[in-house]
């Protein structure tokens, strides 16, 4: 293969990854960095790093998981460079701020009455709902928001999401359950569901 052919092949791979996964990778990076330029830089490094990896997997779903795995390492490098705790150490499903004690009484009953929301998009625009959801995700413990994003927004298989987040299959369910409880509570405090019957 000539240098020109190799260059064209690398551009084709980059273009394919950008089209299929670029925005997903960016949103995940932004969730962790909260900074547009930094998130874009980390996605660029992720894709260039993927080019240097000799054996990319076959198949679209595994390719996405593979790229997210590389992205996670790049994010961990970024965290280390800022002298913060590595991602793996922030994945703690047994954190002390337990949403369940906020929501439930000691006897297992609801602390506050629940209300039937109806469809939130009937009374707010999708963008407004999305902004509120992102704000609420930002209030969750890192492990919960990470699992929620990987599983429910990026729609990765449970096993792949667990592998990327570095948590056991058992803890995946605990994290997702707590994220759902906390998001519902946060959105309700933000006013969602209070005007519907």
């Amino acid at each position, binding site marked *: 293969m000539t*240098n020109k052919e*190799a*260059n064209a092949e*690398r*551009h084709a791979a*980059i*273009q394919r990854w*950008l089209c299929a996964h*670029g*925005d997903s*990778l*960016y*949103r995940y990076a932004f969730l962790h960095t909260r900074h*547009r330029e930094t998130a*874009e830089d980390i*996605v*660029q490094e992720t*894709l*260039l790093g993927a*080019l240097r990896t000799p054996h990319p997997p076959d198949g679209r779903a595994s390719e996405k998981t593979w790229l997210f795995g590389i992205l996670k390492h790049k994010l961990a490098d970024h965290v280390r460079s800022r002298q913060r705790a590595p991602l793996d150490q922030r994945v703690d499903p047994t954190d002390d701020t337990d949403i*369940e004690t906020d*929501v*439930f009484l000691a*006897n*297992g*009953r*609801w602390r506050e*009455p*629940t*209300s*039937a*929301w*109806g*469809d*939130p*998009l009937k009374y707010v625009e*999708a*963008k407004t*709902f*999305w902004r509120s*959801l992102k704000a609420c995700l930002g209030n969750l413990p890192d492990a919960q928001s990470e699992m929620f994003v990987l599983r*429910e*927004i990026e729609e990765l298989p*449970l096993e792949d999401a667990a592998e990327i987040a570095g948590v056991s299959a058992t803890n*995946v*369910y605990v994290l*997702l*359950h707590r994220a*759902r*409880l906390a*998001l*519902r509570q946060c*959105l309700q405090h933000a006013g969602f*569901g209070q005007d519907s019957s």
Partner: protein
Amino acid sequence: MNLMPHCQRVAQNVSAARDGQLHGWARIITLLHLALCGPCRRYARDIDQIYSALQSAHQAQRAEGLSASAKQHVHDRVDQEDAER
């Protein structure tokens, strides 16, 4: 055997059901509890509504992604790396 789980357990089961992890007896008693318990039934519906809204909102904001300049910059970096070889 717990014939009537408390609401906290049922909320966990509602979550497990979303992940395809609620089977057998646990599924039966959860459905029974939901039929009898208004607060838990409303919680389960709320979670469904949030997910439905999330999917719609996600579609609506897909434009929120990597900028065109960032995409071009990746290609520029590829050319730069190739030139340095």
